[in-house]
């Protein structure tokens, strides 16, 4: 498995513990998205989620987590401003696991905005999710392996 390195006082250390391909979907509407595979809590199905460093929070449609609502820990009501207007919902604590094709899955104790106002795919945003992990995207311009998403914990 390919690993990425970080400089530290101890020299070079591997930081990426898992990798998976990602998908670009620029032909679908006006948005170019980077889609990565993840799972919410212990749900049976996977999500192809939009990786979005520009989004304040991870955003999930309420319908999607209806069956696991009793597992979610409510934090507070909140809202974010998006290009489609203000989205209001409930901030909750839940588990989101980035799924690896090589290496190890990365479980993250995440914070997400659960809302009825958002009808798109799961959005993986900065506060409460991306701020907790290390990530890198290899666009695969020169690699036969294609586009790769590397991830690892900051702990």
């Amino acid at each position, binding site marked *: 498995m390919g690993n990425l390195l970080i400089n530290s006082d101890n020299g070079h250390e*591997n930081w990426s513990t898992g990798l*998976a391909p990602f*998908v670009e979907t620029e032909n679908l*509407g006006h948005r170019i998205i980077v889609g990565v595979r993840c799972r919410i809590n212990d749900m*049976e*199905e996977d999500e192809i989620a939009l990786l979005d460093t520009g989004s304040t929070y991870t955003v999930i449609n309420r319908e999607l987590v209806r069956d696991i609502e009793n597992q979610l820990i409510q934090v507070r009501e909140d809202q974010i401003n998006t290009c489609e207007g203000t989205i209001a919902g409930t901030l909750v604590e839940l588990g989101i696991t980035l*799924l*690896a094709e090589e290496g190890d899955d990365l479980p993250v104790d995440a914070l997400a905005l659960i809302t009825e106002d958002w*009808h798109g795919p799961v959005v993986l945003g900065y506060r409460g999710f991306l701020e907790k992990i290390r990530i890198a995207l290899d666009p695969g311009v020169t690699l036969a392996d*294609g586009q790769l998403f590397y991830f690892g914990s900051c702990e």
Partner: protein
Amino acid sequence: MALQSAFSDYRWLRQRDYLTEIAKPAREQTFVQERTEEDKSLEQFVEALWGTAYSITKGLASCLRWESRPEKDVIVMEFQAPARLGAPARKRSFQADFEWIRKNASQYRGDWIAVKEGKLLGNDRSRRALRSRLKEAGLLKGAAFFKVEE
């Protein structure tokens, strides 16, 4: 590495499981392995041990120290494990699903779609309806859901 099979006995497997379990809080781990009669030479033994440690840690652990005690037929390996490891990835390939989405998703604008192993399992305006259908058909586990933009 062929010699790795010599270490797939219950003692070693137990240590593998142990490492996976404790890797989250632990930063360091020591492996002690006795040499068995199956190991033809010390060199082969060490080579196999390295190979196994590499595969356990997915190449992430930095070996801090190793020590041979030939008189006791014992090898001690001490290495630093990554701070946190989730479950090892099962044999998966996401590429076929992504390829399907790249080529075909535009035909399903506004729908939720579910794909698995490069095939469309179903589509629906309602995520809940699609999920229920797949669950009833026993197809939900491992299916990837994606909302195609309008």
